[in-house]
Structures are given as structure tokens and as C-alpha cells.
């Protein structure tokens, strides 16, 4: 017999190594298009980590929205701008900037160490292996009616439209405002002429 909980840590190690490695390459790479491609790889392996935590829906949306839609536009714009390779010299030649960067890195690694220590002291290994959780939701209009949802996607849908309906609607209005704003900015010249 093969236990999933035995593979999970190994897969997590691999995926997180890829995530951290590609995230570093995004920053350190001199070629902007290559950086963007490594950012895609970061998002992709992050999606893998989500999937490992049984959040299939979030994993799919991560790939679909970030890797598939947003990063395509970023790469597209980078290609159209035709940027040249960056150089690291400027930042490192300035002593003030250099000290600030070093200080930030030291502070961050200290914080990371402290938080790792804190999590180690708390309850160590609780790996919950949820394959298809069942949720029950009460509809607000009548106390009697209940919705039972099985599986990841249905649970996300139900909690979005039942528990968090108002925030969801507010976000959609925000997005609508953003869309109208984008159209107005894009049409600025046409409006002035007409």
C-alpha cells in the first residue's frame, strides 16, 4: 500500500524549491522576457502547492488567471517595448542603496528564522487529508432550507454566493468601475477630438 501522506512532503519540497528558485531568477535575470517567463514558472509551481493542499479550484484559477492571462499581457507588452538587458551595476555602486538593501535582507532573514522557530514549537504534524469535504450551508431567507455541497469547486461557489455575497457584489462593482475607467483612458484622444 502507498500512503499519500508520505509523498506529499517530498512533492512539497520539490515544488517549493522550484518556486523559490524561479522567484529568485525573476529578480536576478538580466533579460526582462526571461524574468517574465520565470515568473510564469513561479505561478505554476505555486499552483502545484495549492493542488497539494487539495485546493484544486484555487490551483486552476492561479494558472488560468495569473499564468494564463495576466502574464501573457506582461510578456506581450515587454515584447512590444523591446527592452534591452538590465545591468546591476548602478545599484551596487551607490553605497547608501547598498547598505539599505543589505539591512533589509538581514531583517527579513531574522524575521523568517523567528517565525520558523515559532511554528516548530507549536503542534508539529497535523496533515489533514481531505479528499471531498461535505459542507452544509443554510440559506438566509428560510431557516429550513439547506444546501449541501460536495467537492472543492462547489464549496467555493457556495461560500462565495451564500456566506460572502455582499463582498462579492462589492468586488464586482469595483471591477466594473475599473473596466469603465480603462475604456475612458483608452478613448481619451477620441473623446477630445469628437
Amino acid at each position: 500500500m502507498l500512503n499519500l501522506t508520505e509523498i506529499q512532503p517530498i512533492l512539497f519540497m520539490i515544488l517549493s524549491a522550484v518556486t523559490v528558485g524561479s522567484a529568485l531568477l525573476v529578480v536576478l535575470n538580466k533579460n526582462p522576457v526571461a524574468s517574465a517567463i520565470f515568473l510564469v514558472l513561479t505561478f505554476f509551481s505555486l499552483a502545484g502547492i495549492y493542488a497539494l493542499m487539495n485546493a484544486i479550484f484555487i490551483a486552476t484559477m492561479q494558472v488560468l488567471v495569473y499564468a494564463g492571462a495576466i502574464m501573457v499581457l506582461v510578456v506581450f507588452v515587454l515584447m512590444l517595448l523591446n527592452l534591452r538587458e538590465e545591468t546591476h551595476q548602478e545599484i551596487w555602486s551607490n553605497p547608501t542603496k547598498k547598505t539599505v538593501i543589505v539591512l533589509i535582507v538581514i531583517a527579513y532573514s531574522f524575521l523568517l528564522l523567528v517565525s520558523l522557530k515559532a511554528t516548530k514549537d507549536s503542534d508539529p504534524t497535523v496533515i489533514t487529508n481531505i479528499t471531498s469535504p461535505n459542507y452544509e450551508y443554510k440559506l438566509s431567507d428560510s431557516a429550513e432550507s439547506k444546501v449541501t455541497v460536495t467537492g472543492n469547486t462547489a464549496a467555493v461557489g457556495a461560500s462565495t454566493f451564500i456566506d460572502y455575497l455582499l463582498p462579492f457584489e462589492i468586488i464586482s462593482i469595483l471591477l466594473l468601475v475599473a473596466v469603465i475607467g480603462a475604456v475612458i483612458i483608452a478613448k481619451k484622444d477620441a473623446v477630445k477630438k469628437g
Partner: protein
Amino acid sequence: MDWMLILVWALKSALLFFIIITGCAYYTLAERVVAGFIQDRRGPNRAGPLGLFQPLADGIKFLTKEEVFPVNVNKAMYLIAPAISIVCAIMAWSIIPFGGTIPLPPVLANAVGFPTIDLQVANPNTGILFMFAISSLSVYGIILAGWSSNNKYSLMGGIRSTAQMISYELPLGLSVVIVILLSGSLKLTEINDAQKGLWFIFTLPGLIAFFIFSVAMFAETNRLPFDLAEAESELVVGFHTEYGAFKFALFFIAEYMNMITMSCVVSLLFFGGYNVPFGILEGSELQPLVGLAFFIGKVLFFAFLFMWVRWTLPRFRYDQLMVLGWKKLIPWCLFNIVLASTYVVYWGKYWKGIFN
């Protein structure tokens, strides 16, 4: 989680891979034969009986050609691009259900330890969304190929193709929303089961969604009448101008694979998938196999449609393509979503009642 289960998965994946590669090879042959028929000439008929070994000859040709690297290409990106294309094309196949659950013969069932086998490699909760996630990644193959080749025509082709694929992903996704509304699930198996009584093409919102989907489908696979990415008369062959030998073959196979994937998706979403019509052999053990045959028949029809359209219609102009995508298809999709919601809540049961 049994080792045997993993072995069966691995076997299924390997078998699927073999089937896709062979299918694509013969799809290219079929394309040329159909082109020959439509243009009133003989297609390839030299290699083997009826030209059946033509794909094999093509494969050997691609493998043995010289590997050429043009000057000043970004080598890593230049090599990664075709790999991305083919990986995305293959991965999309992992969630397509080709049939229902098939009972194994007793001997095999005892050997592996479970009585039935699903004709599907993976069945994630997000189903059709997973497929869109994968196919949205395939844009990178084209965009990187265009950019890394260090060639104006390639870059133009890559940019055109990317803009086209981003634009047509919207109507494609919105017409799938209709199917999700009608079936109430993202899982492809459940979408298929929801069409047991009535295929979605026979409902009004489903009919509109099918036409939008099929237009967007041609644009997504970069086929005529929307193959502006590789418009021969303007851009040589677009994003893969600088690619030769097997690197070109990978783009070529990926394109044909995407076409077969789209044929599978359209027959699953609108044409009842692997359901057996009129309840033939209902309850029998043979029914899933008959369903598989029906599914393959539908997929072959849509695969033929791709070739039929390619050799019949002329190419669109680029501005016409964008106007069609953004100003015609998307408003129709939004209208159709309202229609579909109304249909699901109010009219659905009466309309279904007529057929049952």
C-alpha cells in the same frame, strides 16, 4: 492508494499518448487527402497502399533533417517554445473522458484488483476550467517562438497570434459558461451525464453557444479562416518561420493535437459526448463501448469539419477578425448568458418535457 492503481494510470497515460501521436499523424494525412479531394486532385498516394505510410515517411524526414540554429536567436527560449506548445497540447488530453466506466474481463479484474476502468486519466473537480488553464498556457509557445527567432515575420506572427488567442479566449470561455449553467457542473463527466435526455445543442441557448464556440474554436487553433498568425502571403509562415526539422514538427503536431482536443470538447459540451442516443443497449455491459464508438464518430466529424472549412473559406483580414471577436461574439455571449439563466430557471422543464 494502491500501486496497481498507479500502474493502471501510467498505462492509461502511455496508451493515450500513443493514440494521440498516431491520431495526429493520420490526421495530417487525412488533411492532405481531403485537400486533394476538394481541389479535385489526388492526395499523397505513393508511400505504401493508398499512401498510408506517408506520416511515417514524414516523421523520418523530420527526424533526419539538419538541426539549424539561425544567427542571434535566444537559444534557450528558441528550444523551449516548441516544447511548451506540445506539452500544453498533450496535457489538455488528460481530462477528456472518452467513454463511461468499462467493466474489465474477470481475468484482468482479478489481476489488477478492481472491476471497472474509467476511460479518462484524471477527473478533477474543476474539469473544463483545468482545460482552459492549460490551453491558455499554450500561448507562451507561440509568443516565445516569435520573439526568440530574431526575425520580423516571426515576431509579427507571434504578436498577431497572441492577440488573436487572447481575444478569442473570451467568447470561448463565455460560451462554455452557458454549458456550465445548463449542466450545473464543471466536471466533464457530469456535463456529459446532464445531456442524457437532451443534447445541449437542441436547447436555444446551447445552439447559440455552439455557433459562438465553433467560431472561437477555429480562432483558438489558428486555423483558416483565422490563421492570420501564419498568413503565407504576408508573413512567410509566421511564428515558426525560423524553425526547421523536428522543432517545426513539434509545432505541427501540437496544432493538430489542439484541433482534435477541440473536436473532443465540442462533442462533449454540445453533442452529448459519449451518451448513447435512444437508450440503445440500456443497462447492458456493452453500452459504454457503444458510447465510446459514438463519441469517436462525433470527434471524427468535427475533425473533418476543420479540414472542410480550411479548404473552402478564404482568410479574414486582421481588423475584421478583431471586430468579429470583440464587437459581435462577446455581446452575443453576454446576451446568451442572460437567456441561458432564464432558460434554466423558467423554461427548461417545459422544453425538456417535449422531448421525454
